[in-house]
């Protein structure tokens, strides 16, 4: 990818990394509960702590 970007003429591109972006809808009473659940999911399934870090943002939506 880095080579391709450079081949396209994007100079100064360095340390290209690929990660994962996940999006999900979650029912929760409040932000604290949502945050707690997302932490749990991230820890128990969505990330592998040996090779991955994670962070997340919460956005309230109406159903």
């Amino acid at each position, binding site marked *: 990818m880095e080579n391709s970007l450079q081949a396209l003429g994007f100079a100064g591109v360095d340390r290209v990394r690929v990660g994962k972006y996940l999006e999900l809808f979650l029912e929760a009473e409040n932000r604290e509960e949502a945050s707690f659940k997302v932490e749990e999911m991230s820890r*128990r*399934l*969505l990330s*592998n702590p*040996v*090779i991955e870090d994670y962070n997340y943002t919460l956005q309230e939506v109406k159903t």
Partner: protein
Amino acid sequence: MKFGVIVFPGSNCDLDAYYLVRDVLREEVEYVGYDQNNLTGFDVIILPGGFTYGDYLRSGALASRTQVMEAVAGFADTGGLVLGICNGFQVLTEAGLLPGALCRNDSLQFRCRQVYVRVENSSLPVTKRTAEGKVLKMPVAHGDGSFYAPPDLLQELENRGQVVFRYVDEAGLATVDANPNGSSDNIAGIANRRGNVVGLMPHPERAGEKALGSTDGLVLFESLIGFCRGREVPDNA
């Protein structure tokens, strides 16, 4: 003694393992579904290769959270023998039953060819009938086989004899060219601290008959059988 072969949605080497145990080794073997929760009566559990759950999220990640894996953890806890092959190895690391992780091959390409591995620890139930330094020929077929562990954990694995197999050339040297996937220190297979849970990326079950190009994989299964027989009936009984 009895082998169990776990079958997840997307397992595809389950039949290879089953066939080897039943038709080549002439031992009792049964399939165990991913939704089972009882492993009573089994001596050895094999987690076969494949692409469980399509390898979505990470290879082995979804399979590692199934009900049968809770039973496998309990089975391992009580000293049961567990062998994870290829995707089965990935499932074991994802389940936390083996340390480290398996990442995308450094070539970013699927690797399907014969490799040589050197036995680094011959005191385990799975390697008892072989010898340290012995070179075994068997195939690999994987895209996510690059073993990774942080440096301090790698050192610990070496010190405790948990590195069981290492990729080598035919002469037994752990060269860069002999490493098909970029694994740290050419590691092809590891054990847990107790030595009863072992995972490896190469396929010993596909190296069990001359027609397949190698019979070097047999010794691992014979070791497991010998170990279990020894447990059943003491030599001096």
